[in-house]
């Protein structure tokens, strides 16, 4: 099924994502320990922000993007039975790896401690931005590769519904292509000229462009995890997905409304009107609908599987294969999805946001979401696809069994404590929050409880990394073959195409929504006139 070069691509991108996870995890450990009162301070302030930049970039961008590229190839080829073009995959790797290394050098040297949001006018070394631009171009090449596979499949399969996994991959790519123009404009027009020639920039405009990209980025992470719920979990349990149509509805909601919502990260920015913010709140709640539809569908599928195993009204929960690490990871991530989603509703409310904006609440929130729903799902998928991609079995089955549970428990404690600390105002992104003894007393115990939880899930991450690298070297030759993971029949050709399969219509609607959503704030910014300010070099 997989061509050799496809396997090579998957191996390189997935292994590279593990390296990013490992290094990012090391930085996470350093932060966690250093910022907690009563714990040893491992680094000074400058080291802290270097680590924080590394952690944010490696975790939020490199770990997720490389793993996603790997499984995108896996899902597309195994579901559609169409192969990728070798040159496009090759070029993708050259650009994304080259760009990552280029950007990593100034970060690790402490010359680009601008954090992963790199808000100007704080400006780091030019290589950081140039590397980033090259990575983006690489992801566009990859997007072209996926679209090419999809179109070739479509031409040969007229009148057939798109299989639900491939649909998710296509959705991910569409959202990525909706999102990246914002970032590209910011980087090319402002940040690279600023870092090279000191060009003054309008900070509000650049923040708006960044978050034009930043929110859909969230769905770029999330949808591959949802693909696992829709396309992998039912197969694992030997049942059909409860509703394919609802799954596609959810994807379409994500395509429609994942972009014109970025202002929900700028609720407390001056210079943007209440009306624009309200518009983005409303659209945010319509993407939330997609998550709720997903929750129902997944839960109903789980119930179907539990009942098929002889469970009753509630006992079906116990009948599920909780000892299988793939299932356990997916199901535990799904539970955290509930908490992450509810927190997200709070964040997205423009009248509640200022209670939590830039506090540890937010750190709690995204460790539940990208740090768990996405990361834990990717870890469990790894247990499933590792034998297929690397031709070796996982080294230790028993470590794999406890790992998802450790992550879940640790994350639960960490996220709960950080959410509460955030409500008490404890800030994120600080190496030290004592404020010469003026800070509220409640912060310290909450941070300490959070650190205990953090250490537990950090250890779970260490176990995961050691286990996969050990598998490469000592894993027994693979016993699972690729075919057993894909549908026996190749795809689900019996599925009638639905209204949701007519992607071009939905893409047009999405573009219209983006134009409406961003005309309003952009008109405000530009009609008032830009207010560019001098840039400030980091460390200078």
């Amino acid at each position, binding site marked *: 099924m997989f061509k050799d070069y496809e396997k090579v691509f998957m191996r390189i991108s997935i292994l590279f994502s593990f390296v990013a996870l490992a290094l990012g995890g090391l930085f996470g450990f350093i932060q966690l320990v250093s910022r907690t009162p009563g714990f040893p301070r491992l680094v000074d*302030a*400058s080291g802290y*922000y270097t680590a924080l930049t590394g952690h944010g970039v490696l975790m939020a961008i490199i770990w997720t993007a490389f793993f996603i590229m790997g499984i995108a190839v896996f899902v597309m080829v195994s579901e559609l039975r169409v192969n990728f073009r070798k040159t496009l995959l090759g070029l993708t790797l050259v650009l994304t790896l080259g760009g990552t290394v280029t950007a990593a050098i100034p970060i690790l040297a402490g010359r680009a*401690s601008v954090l992963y949001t790199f*808000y100007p*006018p*704080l400006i780091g070394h030019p290589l950081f931005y140039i590397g980033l631009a090259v990575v983006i171009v690489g992801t566009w090449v990859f997007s072209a590769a996926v679209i090419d596979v999809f179109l070739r499949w479509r031409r040969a399969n007229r009148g057939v519904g798109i299989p639900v996994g491939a649909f998710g991959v296509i959705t991910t790519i569409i959202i990525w292509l909706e999102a990246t123009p914002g970032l590209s404009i910011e980087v090319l027009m402002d940040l690279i000229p600023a870092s090279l020639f000191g060009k003054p920039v*309008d*900070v*509000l405009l650049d923040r708006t462009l960044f978050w034009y990209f930043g929110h859909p980025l969230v769905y770029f992470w999330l949808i591959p995890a949802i693909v696992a719920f829709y396309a992998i979990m039912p197969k694992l349990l030997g049942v059909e997905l409860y*509703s394919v*149509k*609802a799954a596609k509805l959810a994807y379409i909601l994500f395509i429609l409304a994942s972009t014109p919502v970025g202002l929900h990260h*700028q*609720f*407390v*920015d*001056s*210079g*943007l*009107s*209440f009306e624009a*913010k*309200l518009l983005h*709140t*409303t659209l945010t*709640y319509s993407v*939330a*609908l997609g998550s*709720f*539809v997903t929750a129902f*569908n997944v839960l*109903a599928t789980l119930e179907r599987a539990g009942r098929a195993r002889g469970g009753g009204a509630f006992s079906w929960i116990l009948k599920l294969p909780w000892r299988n690490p793939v299932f356990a990871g997916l199901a535990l991530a799904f539970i955290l999805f509930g908490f992450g989603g509810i927190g997200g*509703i709070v964040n997205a*409310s*423009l*009248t509640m*946001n*200022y*209670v939590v*904006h*830039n506090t540890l609440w937010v750190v709690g929130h995204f460790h539940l979401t990208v740090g768990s729903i996405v990361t834990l799902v990717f870890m469990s998928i790894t247990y499933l696809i590792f034998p297929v991609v690397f031709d070796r079995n996982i080294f230790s089955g028993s470590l794999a069994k406890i790992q998802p549970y450790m992550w879940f428990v640790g994350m639960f404690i960490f996220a709960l404590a950080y959410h509460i600390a955030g409500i*008490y*105002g404890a*800030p*994120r*992104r600080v*190496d*030290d*929050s004592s*404020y010469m003894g*003026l*800070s*509220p007393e409640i912060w310290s115990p909450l941070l300490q409880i959070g650190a205990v939880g953090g250490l537990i899930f950090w250890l779970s991450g260490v176990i995961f990394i050691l286990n996969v690298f050990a598998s490469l070297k000592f894993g027994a030759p693979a016993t699972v073959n690729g075919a057993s993971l894909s549908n026996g029949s190749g795809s689900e050709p019996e599925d009638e195409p639905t209204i949701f399969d007519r992607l071009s219509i939905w893409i047009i609607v999405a573009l219209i929504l983006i134009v409406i959503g961003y005309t309003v704030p952009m008109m405000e910014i530009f009609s*008032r*006139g830009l*207010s560019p300010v001098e840039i*400030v070099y*980091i*460390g200078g």
Partner: protein
Amino acid sequence: MDRWEALWIVIVAATLGIFIGTLVAIAGVGYIPPSEVEAEYRPTDAVEEFKPGVRSLGDGVYEVNILAYRFSFQPNKIVLENPKEVRFRIYSNDVLHGFNIIGTNVNIMVIPGYVSEIVWRPPPDFEGSYLVICNEYCGIGHSGMFAELVIKR
């Protein structure tokens, strides 16, 4: 998609609709994002006319101009007597900063090139001091950037 699923979608959509309605309703009574309270924007050269300090407009109404810069606020000790309504105007002359009075709803980004404004009605019974912090990363000394707000009765 079956009946239950359709019902679920309707329920969720209605709930989200109620959320949005609530937002609009409570915005009507003044609970709107802080940056939008009579915001006024000035180009960079406003810094000359921007005089940091506390101005009493009488009857418990204050206007407080604050300059945010790496890594402090000016003034960094603000004393208010029997304040009823305080208008903070904050200006940064270098990078992005935050302005968060811990334990209150005052939490606003300070974007260089723009004046951030927010009106605050302090709790009438509070006496003592608040910690004010910069809550947006601004460089290596970020965690040392804070001020004190003292309320006297």
